[in-house]
């Protein structure tokens, strides 16, 4: 197991397009870290620099403390799974997996043993003699994963490996990637723009924007405690409301007609300042006004109801602004556009950030 460190990586393409702006990141031994960000944020560039396909203008890529920037890609002992299917079409699944061993002149028996073992690990033992075009997209990516692991690389790199697959296969395969990664305990850097995917499989998530790291943390930290407006809005769905700090000492803000006590401990805003208040849809409660005594929330009107399966997303216009809430689909049966409702925010889940 190896430790991967990216130190001060900088990369500029052409005139003025800064793809990476002094990126620092550590991936511990056996850890899976996802680089998460929108298209063009520099995540793939970072991965390609680690793999050796791009040369950084500045910075180091350390594997167990040794800078590999000067090494050609073929000598970095890394395995990579690409976004598009990159299996060699002229080779069977078995030959593809055995390819790195063939390059290393391993005996044929050993190659067959190892490729058989890896294909079994990704559930494709019976497809060994199939050519890539005879395999589905998901199967091809499984073979690609097995191939990337065949030579026991120090680091595994995955560049949006599931983005070309359909939704259901994506979910199955991401679980499989995680299972294999945990089974082998291989240090892994995973690039994706899909926040759900990143949150589901990572030990830590590194959120990137415009060539810089916005936040690094466990999926729960990044989701529950975003440190920047970008992270708050990019990771998951979030309501952004305007509020004024009522009392720093009491950690209270005024939002519309409500005064809310913010649960987060790092509440450092001076009294009277305007802040952005972030709350997830699942932390918003919507009650029909016909339910018993007058609720403590802000009054509003339902503007839209979207069925999403187990939950239903309800959009409400109220004195706080436009708020979306995820309510159980059973409760949502009583909600319809135009209906008067009360909106309550869970104060323990409120996050405040200085406006961007």
């Amino acid at each position: 197991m190896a430790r991967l460190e990216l130190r001060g990586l900088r990369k500029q393409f052409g005139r003025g397009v800064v793809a990476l702006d002094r990126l620092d990141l550590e991936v511990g031994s056996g850890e899976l870290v996802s680089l998460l960000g929108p298209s063009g944020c520099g995540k793939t560039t970072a991965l390609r620099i680690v793999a050796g396909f791009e040369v950084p203008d500045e910075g180091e890529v350390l594997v167990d403390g040794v800078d590999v920037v000067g090494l050609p890609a073929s000598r970095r002992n890394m395995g990579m799974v690409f976004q598009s299917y990159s299996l060699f079409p002229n080779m069977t699944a078995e030959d593809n997996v055995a390819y790195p061993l063939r390059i290393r002149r391993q005996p044929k028996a050993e190659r067959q043993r190892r490729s058989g073992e890896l294909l079994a690990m990704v559930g494709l033992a019976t497809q060994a003699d199939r050519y890539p075009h005879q395999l589905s997209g998901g199967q091809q990516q499984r073979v690609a994963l097995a191939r990337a692991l065949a030579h026991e690389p120090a680091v595994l790199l995955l560049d949006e490996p599931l983005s070309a697959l359909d939704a259901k296969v994506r979910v199955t395969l991401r679980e499989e990637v995680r299972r294999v990664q945990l089974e082998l305990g291989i240090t892994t850097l995973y690039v994706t723009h899909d926040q759900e995917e990143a949150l589901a499989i990572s030990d830590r998530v590194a959120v990137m924007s415009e060539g810089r790291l916005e936040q690094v943390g466990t999926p729960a930290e990044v989701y529950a405690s975003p440190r920047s407006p970008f992270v708050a809005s990019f990771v998951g769905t979030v309501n952004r409301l305007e509020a004024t700090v009522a009392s720093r000492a009491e950690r209270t803000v005024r939002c519309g007609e409500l005064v809310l006590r913010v649960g987060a401990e790092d509440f450092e805003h001076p009294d009277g300042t305007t802040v952005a208040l972030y709350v997830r849809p699942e932390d918003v409660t919507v009650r029909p006004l016909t339910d018993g005594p007058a609720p403590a929330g802000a009054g509003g009107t339902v503007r839209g109801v979207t069925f999403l399966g187990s939950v239903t997303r309800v959009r409400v216009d109220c004195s706080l602004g436009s708020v979306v809430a995820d309510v159980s689909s059973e409760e949502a049966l009583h909600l319809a556009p135009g209906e008067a409702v009360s909106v309550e925010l869970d104060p323990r889940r409120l996050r405040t950030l200085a406006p961007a």
Partner: protein
Amino acid sequence: MLRYLGVVPLGAYLLVFLLIPTGELVVDAFRDPSGTFTLSNVTTIFQAQYLSSFAASLELSALAALFGGILGFFAATAVVHPNAPRLVRSSVTTFSGMAANFAGIPLAFAFTSTLGATGVITVAFRHVGVSLAAVNPDATTLGLALVYTYFEFPLMLLLLVPALDGLKREWREAATNLGASGFTYWRTVALPILVPSLLGATVLLFGGAFSAYATAYALSGSTGNLVTELIGNLTNGNVTVDPQLAYALAFGMIVIITVLMVIYGLLQRRASRWLR
């Protein structure tokens, strides 16, 4: 039946300009001038002088396909290289489109005036003590092969550029990532993928050289020994006119090309088994 309506024009074209003439040619190869069936025309082409013509044509075609193929392959590889300036690609492919069709009398004259016995390059080299007799296009198979290469290699380039474009960047990067050198990538991945295209293009080059007539005729006049030149002499010659023998020689060419196509088909099938 309606679904085949679209291919009717192509079928009619093939019938009128390929199948009927070929059929007539084959039938005439087995007739004497009075129209009676005979095997003598076909047996005649097995005489040493005609067999040597076939050998010369085959040798020339093989050399031209080899030279054109190798040159065209490397030129195409350079043109599609990711680091090659766009201007190079567009200018080279435009030039190739023109050069691939530059054959016959103009090409023969171009080479005679440069590499012929009194060509400017030949004379210039003679002044510094170097003889270019071995590549004289008027007199040697090698020289004639070089002339053919002039239109064969751009054709190869035009045929291979799309195939090379089809090589995905990820294949090279995956091979490199897995430890392969550039050479190993070409040997184990790129070339095997390209073999069907390379075979197809080479056969086309061979066929083009095997059936070429005007360039060779313009260079060697009536003294040439290629099958196409013999056919020309036997149908239009001033001394010996024997159309029946010309048909038999053309029939021999058809047989050779058919055999080549069968071999090509078998190789292609083997090389592209991963596509099935």
